[in-house]
């Protein structure tokens, strides 16, 4: 388990324009909620209902296998995202936990707020 000393759950985010941020996540929160609550640029229009695809991120290759695989609902919704890659996920469908501390994601094109 990759944890920091004080047991904080870390979420690393690269924005659409390449800025890097290290956020402190809360256990059980969605990665999207953490990104949004820090005020980083994410549209996340449906607020986590898996019905907009505007929370699309690329997951760092090292982490891809550590996440729950996407549900059919998430796969279907990814059809409404752009530039979808093997490592594409909807960040509202990633629940943060200690096991995911250090997770690194990049906000995908199309996730920018208006």
């Amino acid at each position: 388990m990759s944890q920091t000393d004080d047991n904080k759950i870390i979420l690393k985010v690269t924005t659409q324009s390449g800025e890097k941020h290290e956020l402190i996540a809360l256990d059980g929160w969605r990665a999207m909620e953490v990104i949004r609550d820090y005020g980083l640029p994410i549209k996340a229009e449906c607020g986590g209902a898996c019905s907009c695809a505007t929370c699309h991120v690329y997951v760092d290759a090292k982490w891809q296998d550590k996440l729950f695989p996407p549900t059919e609902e998430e796969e279907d919704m990814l059809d409404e995202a752009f530039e979808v890659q093997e490592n594409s996920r909807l960040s509202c469908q990633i629940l943060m936990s200690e096991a995911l501390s250090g997770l690194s994601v990049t906000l995908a094109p199309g996730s920018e707020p208006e």
Partner: protein
Amino acid sequence: MSNSPSVISQNPGEHHETDVIIVGAGPVGLFAVFELGLLDLKCHLVDILDRPGGQCAELYPEKPIYDIPGSPLVSGQGLTDNLLAQIKPFGAKYHLAEMATALEKTDAGKWRLTTDLGTTIEAPVVVIAAGGGSFQPKKPPIPDIAKYEGSSVFYAVREMEQFRGKNILIAGGGDSALDWALNLHDIAGSLALIHRRPDFRAAPDSVNKMRELVTTGKMELIVGQVGQLHGDDGQLSSVTIKTKEGEFSRDVDCLLPFFGLTMKLGPVAEFGLNLHENLIPVDTEKFETSEPSVFAIGDINSYPGKLKLILSGFHEAALMSQQAFRICRPDEKLRFQYTTSSTNLQKKLGVR
């Protein structure tokens, strides 16, 4: 969804006069019809979506809502259906699949709202219930795509004939992409559907029909994504296509991307109202905007302490209606009544 109360939309392009024009048929716009209706004010609703319900119907029809007072659990579509049933006695007129594009004062001092399909509506009062903005097609973040929009790149099909003989590329995997592939392959010069994966979320029946057309050589299916666009003066000539196997170029005259809808503030920004961070500031007594007799209720407005909840919008609709009445019926007296005990209100509701 099949047993939703049906709503008949007015023919576009006509002129109407009414008491109140409501821009946006989301839950808040719908409930405003009720509150205004109790005061005998007639309404016309305009929405770019082809059905009422706003976010509830478009973003989460099947998801549960737990904080509607008195409804322990109701789905987004369920709430919409209940609201439609509740406002039915008031006979509001709907203008669906139309974008409210302009708002201006007439010489007679009324408001005139115009839609993209040429409908005009005049009324003394306008209520902006535009929520998170109008639902509009998502535009692919492809460099230069704006240069081709309207000439070679289309997010909707209004006129099928304009695609006759053209080399068409349709992008997407949902019902719109599939429906238009099935409808246009006959008249197209060539037609290809491009989708990121071999599976489709569209209705299985359409998917089967599409696969049949592919087998018989009447259209192509490309598993991949659109890369760059190439052309001159807004006229597309080819598209770079990215697949797992690599990139190639394809001759294309028209690209039709179907990636669902997203909310954009849209034309409301040009209505001449004060805006603050894409929201319309209002007072908390009447929910009136910077323009007297133009109100803003629901997610689109802002005031100190605002919560973007459906129940807040309902409250705002009730208070707004009081002032709307004073404007529409300056010579009549406003009386406070309960639906429980007022025979007058019960007659309006058709329960007496």
